[in-house]
């Protein structure tokens, strides 16, 4: 396999400027990450420790195999919302007793582990990762339940009007825990605190439950609800204490003395699962990339209109910088080819410009080829969209784009998406955007995800407005249009930013570009816990 060359001038002004910007963005990301890790703050953590309890990140660290890697998912969820950064919840893929597991849990220092829309989304994503990749599911349960307080800053009527969610649609989490078990994916609950009402079904639906003496409390209704419902004055321990569940109700399978004892038991349970990954082992002998990953810092400009060669990225993430390019002379705006990454085979699709008919057709063929040989796909996004214009429409760009999207939609090998820069419109779909079910999606700090570029959106709105005014024979208010355009551009710009996307749990997290290779390796390893089998059938190809 040929070794990719590099043309990156790491001393050029452009590179250095990009690098400075990137490091600034990484710093911002890390600052927010540190804020998330502080949870409910020093005081809340101190109160926790005083009760012999550990913050969630420490609990997770203790359960993981020493020196093993941990891939945290959506660490910056709920940034720029009324909830704490990180959403008071930690979720990720880690190794327990040599088994890759999904591990998640509420942070008891943040509003006593109450649910909010962000951490609920993270929890559901954790279940999905466990299910699609066939990873044992370990949940550290400690939650005050739903946050009943609501957002008090808002007019209640406005809040009611804004709501689209309804209780009637809730409870899917319990369904999915149960579904994992049906799929013979083990589910383990360690209850570190209270697990009340619906939350009681978190351990209830699990294959294994570990409760902690004088600490875990599991009941459908706590003493106040019992009082309201039946008038009984119940004491907490006999209502739902760990001892009671271990000796009387049978809900507790293991009774731990304290948190560390519970964590030890959790490791023992995973240790006895007799777990075998389904996918083939990666090749053992591979070389790191020959080109320094530090180069990734200066590749992408903050101004996404500045192009870069995606091969420079490939050269810094694949084994030995080796890449066998497919059809390099046809549809050159999409780079396709084969490589290995930490010994795993991978088919890479990377954007080098807008998608044309040729590049879309090439993609459809390449995706089919990878499905034929059970090879996972890696999408490296930097895509402003499919090319538009009369000639291209007449040339069948929509039809050919549909082929690419058909291939992406029905492909059954694992997809991993890394958004380096732009990921706009149907380009995002063609490159296996979040809605197309890639196994994992990570974004660089430079990523922007939207229907189109903010300037384009503002311009489109302006043109449409002007046309509408003309039709009605009205004078076009230029000043109002400028104001509206600025507003739209700001709104679109802010919402397209990578940080915003990641805060909405619409990807699996923002990463330092230098971590790209490692992140993909962990993702691939997780994918190979399940069967890696290509599709035999696709939808109808529009010819």
């Amino acid at each position, binding site marked *: 396999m040929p070794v990719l060359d590099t043309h990156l001038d790491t001393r050029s002004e452009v590179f250095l400027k990009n690098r400075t910007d990137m490091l600034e963005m990484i710093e911002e990301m*890390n600052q927010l*990450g*540190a804020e*998330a*890790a502080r949870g409910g703050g020093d005081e809340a953590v101190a109160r926790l420790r005083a009760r012999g309890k550990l913050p969630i*990140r*420490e609990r*997770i*660290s*203790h359960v993981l*195999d*020493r*020196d*093993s*890697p*941990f*891939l*945290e998912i959506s*660490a910056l969820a709920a940034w720029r919302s009324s909830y704490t950064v990180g959403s008071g919840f930690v979720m990720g893929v880690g*190794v327990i007793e*040599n*088994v*890759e597991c999904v591990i998640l849990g509420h942070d008891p220092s943040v509003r006593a582990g109450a649910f909010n829309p962000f951490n609920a989304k993270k929890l559901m994503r954790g279940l999905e990762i466990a299910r699609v990749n066939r990873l044992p599911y370990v949940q550290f349960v400690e939650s005050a339940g739903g946050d009943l307080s609501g957002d008090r800053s808002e007019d209640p009527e406005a809040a009611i009007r804004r709501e689209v969610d309804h209780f009637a649609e809730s409870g899917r989490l319990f369904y999915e825990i149960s579904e994992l078990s049906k799929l013979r994916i083990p589910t383990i609950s360690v209850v570190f605190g209270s697990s009340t009402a619906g939350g009681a079904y978190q351990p209830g639906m699990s294959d294994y439950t570990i409760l902690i003496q004088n600490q875990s409390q599991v009941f459908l209704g706590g003493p106040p609800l019992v009082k309201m419902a039946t008038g009984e004055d119940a004491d907490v321990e006999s209502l739902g204490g760990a001892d009671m569940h271990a000796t009387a109700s049978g809900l507790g399978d293991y009774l731990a*003395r*304290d948190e*560390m*004892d519970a*964590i*030890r038991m959790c*490791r023992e349970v995973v240790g006895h699962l007799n777990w075998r*990954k389904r996918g083939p082992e*990666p090749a053992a002998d*591979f070389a790191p990339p020959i080109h320094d990953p530090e180069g990734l810092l200066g590749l992408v400009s903050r101004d996404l209109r500045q192009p870069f060669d995606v091969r420079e990225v490939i050269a810094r993430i694949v084994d030995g910088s080796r890449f066998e390019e497919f059809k390099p002379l046809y549809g050159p705006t999409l780079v396709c080819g084969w490589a290995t990454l*930490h*010994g795993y085979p991978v088919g890479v699709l990377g954007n080098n410009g807008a998608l044309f008919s040729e590049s879309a057709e090439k993609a459809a063929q390449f995706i089919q080829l990878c499905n034929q040989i059970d090879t996972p796909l890696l999408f490296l996004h930097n895509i402003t969209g499919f090319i538009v214009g009369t000639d291209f429409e007449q040339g069948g760009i929509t039809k050919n784009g549909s082929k690419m999207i058909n291939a992406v939609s029905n492909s059954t090998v694992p997809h991993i998406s890394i958004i380096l820069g732009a990921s706009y419109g149907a380009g995002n779909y063609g490159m296996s955007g979040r809605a197309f079910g890639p196994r994992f999606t990570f974004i660089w700090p430079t990523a922007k995800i939207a229907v189109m570029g903010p300037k384009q959106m503002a311009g489109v709105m302006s043109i449409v407005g002007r046309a509408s005014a003309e039709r009605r024979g009205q004078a076009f208010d230029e000043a109002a249009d400028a104001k509206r355009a600025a507003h739209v551009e700001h709104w679109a710009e802010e919402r397209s930013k990578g940080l915003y996307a990641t805060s909405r749990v619409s990807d699996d*997290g923002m*990463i*330092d570009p*230098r*971590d790209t290779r*490692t*992140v993909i*390796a*962990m993702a691939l*390893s997780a994918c190979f816990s399940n069967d890696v089998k290509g599709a035999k059938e696709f939808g109808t190809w529009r010819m």
Partner: protein
Amino acid sequence: MADVIERRAIHRLLVANRGEIARRVFRTAREMGIATVAVHSEGDADAPFVRDADQAVALGGRTSAESYLDIGKIIDACRRSGADAVHPGYGFLSENAGFAQAVLDAGLIWVGPSPAVIAKMGDKLSAKAVMAEAGVPTLPAIELKKRTDVRQAARKIGYPVLVKASAGGGGRGMRVVAEEADLEAAIDSARREARGAFGDDTVFLEKWLDRARHVEVQILGDQHGSLVHCFERECSIQRRHQKIIEEAPSPAVDAALRNAMCEAALSAARVLGYASAGTVEFLVSGGEFWFLEVNARLQVEHPVTEAIIGRDLVREQIRIAEGEPLSFRQSDLAINGWAIEARLCAEDPSAGFLPSPGALVAWRPSPVGGARFDSGVEPGAVVSPDFDAMIAKVIVHAATRREAASRLARSLETTEIQGLVTNRDFLVACLRHEAFLSGDTTTDFIARCAPATRRRPDPGEIKRAVIAATLEGQVRRRAAARVLRSLPSGWRHTTTPDEQIQFMLDGITVAVSYRMDRSNVFRIEVDGETHAARIRARDGEGLEVDIDGVRERFRIRARDASWFVHSRLGDLELVERPRFPPPQSEAETGRLTAPMPGVVFAISVASGDQVTKGQVLMVLEAMKMEHRIVAPHDGRITELKVAVGDQVTNGQLLLQIET
């Protein structure tokens, strides 16, 4: 002596011994083109000396009596292996006239003095009589027969007196008695030990000199009547009457004294018609000397003599046995430089030099100091409670005494010995003690100077060892990982707690937290201070680490929870604390366990007995020494788990006391 000496070349030599001395003899035999045969007990089947030999014959049996002391079995081994000669080494049957005779009767060559000489010298009392007749000065001594009034005898000699086994050797069956009240107990105990060790409980009393030196003269005689001395050795540094540091020449012997002693030794040898290697031991005090005994065999400490005269004594022994003349004359011999030997033993100097048998996790003689290592062990070897606890003899030959002492200390210090408690630190402390360096070495040196029994590593060394062990552990865990093994160690891309680990050293906990950064540098916090460490190289057990810009090599081994860290500063054992609390530990009170492996020698209580604190409950015998198990507190024996004669392992429950 026959007029015509029969010359018979040895083709196949059986060594009726074990451990380092067997290997030592094999080495010379190999150099002389002689095939070698080892014999071994059950426990020694895989010992290095067995593998060293061309052939090995299993004697069966666990104890000395069942193996290395069984004459019939050894003669049979000669027959089965086709050996034509026997070298007895030292100890065991080396001074057993009956064995020498049995070897000769079987038509084999005996590498040693004649049975008659051995018999004469084996009994220390008769040896003294022979020497006194030959005009060699002796100390007053009285044999303790059945009807001897021991108190009167002791008074006649004058306290302090030494109770000594007539058949003894190696310090066994010896007791110093300072006052009458202790006399009978000492005699009983010496008799018991002598009976166990030599099968003969004859003891006698001898005058004990407090600040004397032990100086001995090496002699060699051939069957043609040639006799030479190889100068003196001083072996005054002793514990439990056993030598631990020996040197040649003696710092206390001047030319005149040397001349007198060597002449006395030669006249003793002449009287005996001595034809082999032997040693005449003297006590020296204030320029005077007295005969102690003749060792009709090769001595443990013979290498220091070999070093200063540049000759191989085993080679001479073999040649003499073959009927060859000595390969040198007296005038060929001169003292060249100074040699010191230290006996490295599995014993605990802080616990009265109690033997501490067990498995040797690591053993790597130091290349520093250029020492000669005569050892019977290899890594993984088990120092058995059934035999002597010596691991190795370490010998340095240098131009001066000070240089020899300093190089020997450094050799010992930089030798990797892990998994066992040894006297290494103590030997180093002796060798560096001002009294030793100034030659102020008398037999009471250890009691008088009390050298440190254990080295105290400084905080910097501990810290570096902790960092090295942490990194090594990390490497091993990564290598053993069954998934994601190729990923960076402990990789994180978000803010998470560092990896944490705790070690124990001498009861103190050292907390470590660490993480590897993007450039493979570990940020390691030890006791609140952060260090930057990077692994430079790693091969086998060797780990080269750069810690805060200083590069150093470590050798690290792990066994159970222990990390054995070796650096040029010495060895440390760090015990990793368990990551999680153990599953429900049971109550451990009132359980008395065996402090070391051994045999239950006596039990003085029965189940249900009421006992008081300090009462002797049981006696264990291990490594030929008695260990008393005493009640730690008042109470009642609720359970007796062993019986007399039982073999017990280290930590085995012996009995239970309820308060």
